[in-house]
């Protein structure tokens, strides 16, 4: 965990313009933007799993897509090893694609319904010219399907996605991402659409198959899952990273009020335990042109005057544990 980071993100920002209805766009000059990812910087080291945790709509998925340039950022830089991938042309980027893969959230949407499992799984190999003939293609696909516990592979190769269960589909999606042994995989809530039993299976498979890749960005909204799977965790709120540190540090020593609220919201599988502490108030504010102050200000029970004036920077409070809160910088 000490070599050069595999991914470095610097001041990444993605704003989605909102177009008003026909007339209003003529009448008003003010431009509205959804600040999906707002000035985010972090590193992902080699052989590391970084968890990205946050609630719905906080920009996790957008950030994941920005990292492998499925979306063009508004500003900022993303380095893969030493290359700034945002400066690459389309064809140069395509050459780099096999190094970076993504597993999508919804296996019902991410597989082309008109392709067989064989073609789906082999697609990354084929478009990157990594195989020579059909025999090699079938061999490689069979191998990864076996690793995915889709046995016997011949049973599955010629099925269509609609002939598979949700868990099987997601395994196909994982197989697709891992078959070319990428350096870096963005796993965008890979288990959130699955039921609990399948979820465990897929997670365990992904842990087992870590050998096929180097690093993960693991996007999830469940801290428990992130803690189980990740080396480090970054907590995101409204497009900004609030806290980042090793999994144990985040769970055992949460320093941001939002992290604490998240931890307390994690359900405990014990019907007798009663949660009474509510240390959060209000609703998430709109991400459209948010005011220049702490994003969490309106919901924070501990907010002070400075929080309404200044946006806190992400500061190291020791041992790589970083927090963006005015109250925890002392």
């Amino acid at each position, binding site marked *: 965990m000490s070599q050069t980071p595999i991914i470095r993100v610097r001041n990444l920002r993605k704003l989605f313009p909102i177009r008003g209805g026909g007339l209003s766009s003529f009448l008003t000059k003010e431009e509205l933007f959804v600040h999906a990812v707002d000035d985010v910087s972090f590193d992902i080291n080699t052989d590391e799993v970084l968890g990205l945790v946050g609630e719905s709509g906080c920009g996790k998925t957008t950030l994941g897509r920005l990292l492998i340039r499925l979306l063009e950022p508004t500003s900022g830089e993303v380095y893969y090893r030493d290359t700034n991938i945002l400066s690459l042309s389309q064809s140069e980027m395509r050459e780099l694609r096999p190094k970076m893969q993504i597993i999508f959230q919804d296996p019902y949407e991410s597989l082309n319904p008109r392709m067989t499992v064989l073609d789906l799984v082999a697609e*990354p190999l084929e*478009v990157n010219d990594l195989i020579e003939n059909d025999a090699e293609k079938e061999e490689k696909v069979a191998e990864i399907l076996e690793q995915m516990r889709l046995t016997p592979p011949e049973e599955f190769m*010629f099925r269509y996605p609609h002939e598979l269960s949700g868990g099987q589909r997601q395994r196909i999606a994982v197989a697709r991402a891992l078959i070319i042994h990428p350096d870096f995989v963005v796993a965008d809530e890979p288990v959130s659409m699955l039921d609990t039993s399948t979820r465990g299976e897929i997670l365990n498979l992904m842990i087992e198959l870590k050998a096929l890749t180097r690093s993960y960005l693991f996007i999830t909204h469940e801290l428990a899952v992130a803690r189980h799977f990740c080396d480090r965790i970054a907590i995101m709120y409204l497009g900004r990273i609030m806290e980042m540190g090793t999994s144990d540090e985040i769970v055992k020593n949460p320093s941001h009020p939002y992290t604490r609220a998240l931890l307390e919201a994690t359900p405990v599988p014990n019907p007798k335990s009663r949660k009474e502490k509510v240390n959060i108030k209000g609703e998430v504010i709109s991400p459209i042109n948010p005011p220049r102050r702490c994003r969490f200000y309106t919901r924070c029970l501990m907010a002070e005057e400075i929080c309404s004036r200044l946006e806190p920077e992400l500061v190291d409070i020791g041992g790589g544990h970083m927090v963006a809160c005015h109250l925890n910088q002392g």
Partner: protein
Amino acid sequence: MTISTRRKRFNRLIKRAKGFWGDYKQNKKGLFGLGLLFFFVLFALFGPMLSDNHPVMDWDVGGRRVPPAWFKYLPGFQYLVPNLDPIDDVGFGDSDELSAWDIETNFEDSFTVTHSTEGYERGSGPGSILISLDSEAIEPSAANIKISKTFSWDYSNPPKRFRTNLNFKAEGVEGTSLNIRLVLVDAKRVEYVLWQRDIISDTIWSYPEYKVDSYSIKVKMIFPDGVFADPAHIIFNGTGEYEFYFMASFDNIDTESTVTTHLYVDDLNIELRGTSYGLLGTDQWGRDVYSQLAHGAKTSLFVGLLTAFISVSIGLIVGLFAGFSGGLVDEVSMRFADMLLVIPFLPLLLILIAILGQSVLNIILVISLLGWMGFSRVVRSQVLSLKERTFIEAARAAGGSTIHITIKHILPNVMGLVYVSLATNVPAAITAEASLSFLGLGDPSIMSWGQMLHDIVYYSAIKELYWVIPPGLCIALLAVSFVMMGFSLDEILNPRLRRR
């Protein structure tokens, strides 16, 4: 492993096809459409074989504008008579064909009638009859020779028309007066001289100066009613034995000379054209309506399928391109499509065909170049929605190029639309071609159903149902068959319409 898996892949394909057929079988409309189409394809393939007549070039295969032969079984049509051809082969290709004719002369010894290999070049067959008169062996009075054919007319009603044919050449007639004539003798032995000529000098191959035909004014003038007479009606006035003959009379023969007179006769014939013909009757020029219908089926299917294929292909390519690239390409191509869409179709079609020329390829080209816009809009909208699907993003993340994504991911997902659109475009193309032909801008060398309807209107034959109904019905049925198939394909391939 590869071989076995390839077989499995093939089996999957078969299974899918069977599944599709299973769905299609359930669909009554689809089966009806498919059956109709199957019928028309068979008709277009084998229909023309059932008739030797060329639909455009073969005039007067029957009486002009006569109903079908089977009409005589209908009440009120008992008077209909068929064609009669007393002579089978008129070419005199070999000496055997002479035996079809009776030859009589009043001076047996002087005439020799043989077969000659020389014949009228533009007639049928290479040979002719050669009549030689040896002047030394004859007395200087009249000598004549008659080549005749007797045939029986078994109908109490006359034929629509009769036609005769003759080509001849005379050599060595100097000093002799020679008269040749064509005569028709009715059942009561009344002779009608249809044509005659005195030949005073040698001739090259010649034929009568007017067509010796019951429609000819010169023939009509033989009769008291003149131009109002119908020779076929007057001559064929009852059942009985009729005779048609060619006669050559020689007079004032110069017995001093040693010249032998030669008279070549070729293509001698009489044809009776009945008042009914074939399966579907004849048109204004005596052409076979059945043959026109069968060849028209070929034209209509060809034009319909090719046009639909071209226009759907153009629509698909433009739609894919516009939808996937978006931005300026999208704007420009879609505005261009809109522009073409708002121009009235038929007037533009008429003008373009008038400028480009009336050929079937031009018609196909113009109809398909004006027929792609609607489909391209449909494809574009489908691509726009597909483009946002996650599996397209997944393909891009896998490293797929735009071309790869378009061909492997977008195209298979719009193919359902393509099949449906093909099926619905065919009848549009067929009716467009029919409209063009109907308005007189069709390809004159090729018969089509639209062309037939055009002829019907042009020659005011709207009331001739035997001629009007077949092309009209065929256009409607072929269009219906494709529309039915389009509907059923839409129901099968578009799951939202599927009834469960």
